[in-house]
């Protein structure tokens, strides 16, 4: 890689050991990908919680903080594995919670804003076209690349921290024009309505094209999708397909026309998704033991508009006895939802609202599942239906209204 005088100085230790080490990590990744240079970033979003990093990661952060490492680009955190107000109710481990508090302390010491949200793009920072970022949580990355036309790769926790310390990233992947062109065309021959239908569409596209470099171009969508619909589409594409970008003709900024989205090249493939394909997705989930006592609205965290819609659907109803309904959102959204009365409506119906977390990364989830007799997890989020499975849930994707019906009646549909 071509290094600037500043980068060479960093490697010689001019900005201290943590920045040197950070740049060395980035250099190794850059060399792997054949990057030619580093490019500056103006915003960083990182994943870091005790469930994912473990004791080894905590020790790493302790060490870094002890060396007075400091992030120099605005950096926020993704959803974490504890909502401290709900530890006992969820049967989470007090010892691990104490580690999580330590971890948060180390991050704050290093100038990280611990915002604990995976919807930073809806609540904290809206990047502009062409802006270079180092974002983690795949849902945030696919949003930035696709909807904003900003540029970022999937950046893991340590990689994002490195970027915030060095103020740069190696230029490869979605920082380069050549990887941002559509590679295949998806003709959507139905009009997705519910979030679960957008998610089911993404599951069909993502599962069959698992590749970081696959960039689908959606055609045939006849109305302007809402932000929350694009959020569910993107989060599920990233989850099932490991994808970091999509185009939607006339909707996303790098796709004014099909030819522009494809960069003048021929698509490798054209696929068509019809309503019957999507219906088969919904029909394909087996209800393992017939139970439906765990309904989840999470992954990504809910926006205020999603909170309000859900509050309307639950208003005047009660969650079925023995059923747990979890909703996750950010601190900012929750405070607005309280001010506007949506949170109270959900809680009056018996819904549990968790702040700053995502259900699939909750600490102790496997044991929580067993202790509560949760076999099936029912959700309107195609992403979480995919991501939670390592905890041995049988997962079922359902439309939002059906999720609410199941939650309130205890009857599977």
């Amino acid at each position, binding site marked *: 890689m071509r290094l600037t005088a500043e980068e060479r100085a960093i490697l010689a230790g001019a900005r201290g050991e943590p920045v040197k080490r950070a740049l060395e*990590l980035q250099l*190794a*990744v850059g*060399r*792997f*990908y*054949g990057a030619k240079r580093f490019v500056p970033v103006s915003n960083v979003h990182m*994943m*870091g919680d005790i469930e*994912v*990093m*473990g*004791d*080894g*990661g905590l*020790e*790493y952060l302790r060490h870094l903080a002890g060396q007075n490492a400091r992030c120099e680009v605005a950096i926020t955190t*993704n959803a974490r594995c504890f909502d401290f107000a709900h530890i006992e109710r969820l049967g989470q481990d007090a010892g691990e919670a104490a580690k999580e508090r330590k971890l948060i302390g180390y991050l704050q010491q290093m100038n990280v804003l611990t915002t604990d949200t995976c919807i930073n793009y809806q609540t904290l920072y809206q990047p502009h076209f062409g802006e270079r970022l180092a974002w*983690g*949580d*795949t849902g945030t990355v696919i949003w930035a690349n696709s909807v904003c036309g900003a540029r970022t*790769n*999937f*950046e*893991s*926790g*340590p*990689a994002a921290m490195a970027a915030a310390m060095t103020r740069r990233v190696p230029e*490869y*992947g979605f920082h380069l024009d050549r990887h941002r062109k559509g590679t295949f065309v998806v003709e959507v021959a139905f009009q997705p309505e519910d979030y679960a239908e957008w998610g089911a569409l993404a599951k069909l596209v993502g599962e069959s094209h*698992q*590749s*970081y*470099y696959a960039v689908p171009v959606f055609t045939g969508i006849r109305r302007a999708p809402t932000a929350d619909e694009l959020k569910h589409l993107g989060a599920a594409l*990233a*989850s*099932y397909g*490991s994808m*970091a970008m999509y185009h939607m003709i006339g909707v996303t900024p790098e796709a004014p026309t099909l030819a522009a989205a494809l960069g003048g090249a021929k698509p490798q493939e054209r696929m068509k998704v019809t309503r019957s394909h999507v219906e088969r997705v919904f029909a394909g989930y087996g209800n393992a033991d017939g139970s439906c006592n765990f309904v989840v609205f999470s992954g990504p965290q809910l926006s205020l508009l999603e909170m309000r819609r859900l509050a309307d659907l639950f208003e005047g109803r009660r969650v079925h006895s023995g059923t747990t309904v979890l909703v996750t959102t950010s601190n900012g959204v929750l405070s607005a939802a309280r001010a506007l009365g949506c949170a109270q409506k959900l809680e009056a119906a018996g819904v549990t609202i968790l702040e700053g977390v995502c259900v699939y*990364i909750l600490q102790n989830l*496997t044991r929580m599942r067993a202790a509560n007799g949760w076999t099936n997890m029912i959700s309107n989020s195609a992403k979480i239906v*995919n*991501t939670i*499975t*390592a905890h*041995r849930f*049988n997962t079922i994707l359902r439309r939002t209204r059906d999720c609410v019906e199941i939650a309130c009646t205890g009857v599977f549909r």
Partner: protein
Amino acid sequence: MKKTRLTIRVKRAFGRVVEGEAVLSSEGFSPRYDLDRWSGVITRPGHELEGVNIRDKILFFPTAKGGIAAGWAFHDIKTKGIAPKALVFGVTNPVMVQGAVFAELTITEGWSRDPRTFIRTGDFVRVDPSAKTIELLKRA
């Protein structure tokens, strides 16, 4: 008589030379979706490698799935002593690479021929990142 060893070339590689037992999958992999990070066993129901312990293995996956978590997860499982020796991907994503670099695990991407056509689970292989090769050393 000297036998020519079966070798594949990889496109990109990081890490030190490792030798070990191969585990091959035709399904992709994510340490967060598929793996129990306390035992090192792949626990996702229905995963082709469900029940397989990845410790000290050389893992072959055609693709990477999902998530940002690998960045911490490889370091975590290495600290716990249950990490694989190497990750060999057809196509991977940057998180796997960042995670492997951070944890100092050997990782490669891209292959000149599909390893499933001549390497079987249980075979003994050597991954050489600087030569960008994977060699079959011994049949199971």
